């Protein structure tokens, strides 16, 4: 990084800081409220649902097993793997929206790498 780049950085930072320092009162008030809402989280008890996760997983697996025994035709060679994949998606941590949007991810990867080249 040369001297000109550093000068540029300083000028850009000054312009940015100027805009930060001049935020209007309504926006600052909203930020203040957001901060207090976030700090209120400290008083919230830890979420209890995570404790039930293993039990939920076992229950879901049992339900699938019962369904397979009750109507094996539904879980034939064609549908079986798909159904299991669906369950993985539903039980997984990734958002369904993200999984629906794989095409967009591949596009953004390409766009980013092209941007990097340019």
């Amino acid at each position: 990084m040369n001297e000109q780049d550093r000068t540029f950085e300083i000028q850009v930072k000054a312009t940015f800081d100027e805009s930060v320092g001049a935020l209007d009162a309504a926006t600052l008030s909203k930020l203040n409220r957001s901060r207090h809402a976030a700090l209120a989280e400290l008083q919230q008890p830890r979420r209890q649902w995570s404790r039930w996760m293993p039990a939920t997983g076992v229950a879901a697996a049992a339900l699938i097993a019962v369904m397979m025994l009750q109507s094996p035709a539904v879980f034939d060679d064609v549908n079986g793997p798909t159904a299991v994949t669906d369950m993985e998606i539903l039980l997984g941590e990734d958002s369904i929206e993200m999984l629906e949007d794989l095409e967009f991810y591949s596009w953004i990867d390409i766009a980013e790498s092209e941007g990097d080249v340019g």
Partner: protein
Amino acid sequence: MEVSTSVFAVSCAGTPTTGIRALQKERQLNQFLAEVERRALRIAEIGVRDRDEALDLVQDAMIKLVRNYSDRGTDEWAPLFYRILQNGVRDWHRRQAVRNRVMVWFGRKPSEDSDYDAIAAAPDTSGRAPDEELQNSEAMQSLETAVHELPARQREAFMLRTFEGLDVAGTAVAMGCSTGSVKTHYSRAVHALREKLEEHRPGDYGPRVGER
């Protein structure tokens, strides 16, 4: 500063040390968030070009930091906070892309960046000379547009390093990549921005890239 009475109640119920520690933690978090919130808002706003959306993203990042990482060391908060915020900005763009696709499907015009009114969102500059006000507003507008047009990773690296002042290691944590990648993205961003800004506003940001 507001000191929550419920925290005090917890401290009375538990051991005194635990209560004091909880109060201290709350004070530290309050101070940290108050320090970063304005810059974080402007960074998110440049990323999504909508102040209300940016406010929501900042609030989400604050809540997630407090909920999940309040026990971490105070020096880890800034990279973690910005990592959460950057993820939020990326998710926002993904949702926006899906929404736009659906809008196109139903034959409606997708929302575009051009809807964003940079002048309406410009900061309150009351108390300054009109010339100075206009100059600052225009400089910020050009900078904001140029930064927004950078590729996503370059934009993140540039904003975290220059606007927030994170070091290379902190930026790498916030971006979830190596320090080498941060340096590459940052260097490309600086060059691209200098070229772009000098093209539109010669003299405002130092000599032209080619004139060194």
